[in-house]
């Protein structure tokens, strides 16, 4: 179950996308998502899809790996589609009982599917091509401006990277404790939800105890190694922009501007409307 989540997983291979500075990738995702939600015509989506596919191709991550991440959001996807399909007012196509499906609903539902899948795929690409470490470094540096607002960006980044480091250890530990309790006759499978939840107490209590013990040990080890917050630290692997990052930024901004411009239906319709007006002297 836990293995199905591709978000946050790293896929090891060599590619241009892997080598890009994490800040480029993070900003890229952000802009991509913003762009997605501004589109209101197929042209925008088509450009978006072409862009996404190109990036996926360049990243050398198998397509199957990226779509795996979609499994987790299928439920959310269906839910949004249904809501939009049935609750958007407009010209009805089919109407039966209390339910009406409208043209507008259909269009909104369809664009929601596109947006959400592209959003998930786009962000999966970042995590699949960036090591967790690199990602936290990117966040730390990219969010550096937050320091003005007294946000301890360095500490938050440290917390994130420690959390990522301990996830596999704690998963292993959960497995071990579950087995130990199974050996004492615990039953995690039968019964209703309440019973199942109760059965987890013998797992969760030792897990928390152990997590706290580890946290204490780790804090001590970090202090012993002179960790005193993010200030005054130097970096073993500082982030430095390379030429390819500059090129990537240029491509990125071009894409965003062009796709938003073309993707706004009104821009195009207005354009054709004005030509029509000029040619025939009356509105379309």
């Amino acid at each position, binding site marked *: 179950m836990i293995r199905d989540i591709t978000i946050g997983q790293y896929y090891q291979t060599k590619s241009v996308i892997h080598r890009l500075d994490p800040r480029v990738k993070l900003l890229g995702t952000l802009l991509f998502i913003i762009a997605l939600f501004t589109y209101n015509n197929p042209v925008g989506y088509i450009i978006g899809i072409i862009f996404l596919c190109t990036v996926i191709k360049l990243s050398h991550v198998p397509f199957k790996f990226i779509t795996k991440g979609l499994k987790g959001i299928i439920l959310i996807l269906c839910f949004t589609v249904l809501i939009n399909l049935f609750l958007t007012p407009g010209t009805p196509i089919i109407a039966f009982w209390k339910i009406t499906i409208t043209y507008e609903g259909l269009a909104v539902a369809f664009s929601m599917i596109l947006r959400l899948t592209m959003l998930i795929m786009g962000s999966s690409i970042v995590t699949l091509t960036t090591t967790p470490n690199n990602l936290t470094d990117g966040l730390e540096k990219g969010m550096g401006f937050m320091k003005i607002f007294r946000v301890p960006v360095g500490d938050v980044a440290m917390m994130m990277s420690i959390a990522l480091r301990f996830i596999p250890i704690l998963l292993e530990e959960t497995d071990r404790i579950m087995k130990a309790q199974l*050996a*004492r*006759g615990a039953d995690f499978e039968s019964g209703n939800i309440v019973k199942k939840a109760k059965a987890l*107490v013998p797992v969760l209590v*030792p897990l928390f105890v152990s997590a706290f013990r580890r946290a204490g040990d780790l804090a001590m080890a970090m202090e012993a190694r002179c960790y005193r917050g993010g200030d005054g630290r130097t970096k073993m692997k500082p982030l430095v922009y390379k030429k390819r990052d500059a090129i990537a930024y240029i491509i990125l901004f071009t894409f965003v501007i062009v796709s938003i411009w073309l993707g706004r239906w009104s821009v195009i319709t207005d354009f054709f409307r004005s030509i029509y007006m000029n040619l025939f002297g009356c509105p379309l």
Partner: protein
Amino acid sequence: MPLILDHVCQIYNADTETPVKALDDVNLVIPEGQFIGVIGHTGSGKSTLIQHMNGLILPTSGSVYFNGRDITDKDFDKKELRKHVGLVFQYPEHQLFETDVFEDVCFGPKNMGMSKKETELAAFEALRKVSFPEDLYYASVFELSGGQKRRAAIAGVLAMKPDFLILDEPTAGLDPVGRCEILDMVSELHRSAGITIILVSHSMEDVAMYVERVIVMDKGRVAYDDVPREVFSHSEELEQMGLAIPEPAKITRELLKRGFDVDPGVLTSSEAADSIYKALTKNR
């Protein structure tokens, strides 16, 4: 009713490019009443092996028979198996979760469907068997010392009244006296209660003094399965498997090479001293 492992194989990650053969054609018969030591280097498959014995892991191929029945059968009651074959994991104190020791020891028998009275009786008996200090029966788990926690955890398995008791590294992390105390206690369980004991360890010295049969695991296979004397006579092979033979045996072996008439199969330092003394006085 013996425990039989018949051509048991266990392959992890079978569907990936890097399958791991954790167990490779293991055949064992474990009759009732024996005191067995299982030794092996970390990663030799010994932990995987013992988890097959009470159905926590099912073999990829091959069968495990308990009481004449195949435990992989769909209608086989694994809970019943776990009642008869108790498994104490490494660092078992990490599985304690109840507010006090006594409650925690009751967890196993309660799961086995014993009545309240039976459960409490079993818990008392188990705590007595591990010579847990009486004034701490109702103490919080957090007030106990390392050795006491371990005893409490072992009692938690013992309270289910198993016929087979498997202990994975029961002495890990304890100091020398703590180690001796636990091993003496286990030995006493075998002697007075007639429980079949399977003691897993990577320390030959722990095992040598107590057990009547040693199973050496190496790379998922049973490398040796014999009385300790015989097994330790393969000192070179054992060292290649990353296992050091007990120091007393190492010394008498060295002396034997240099022409002393000593017994190369000694297991304890007193035996070694006796043997060397005899050799020295005979020569005079």
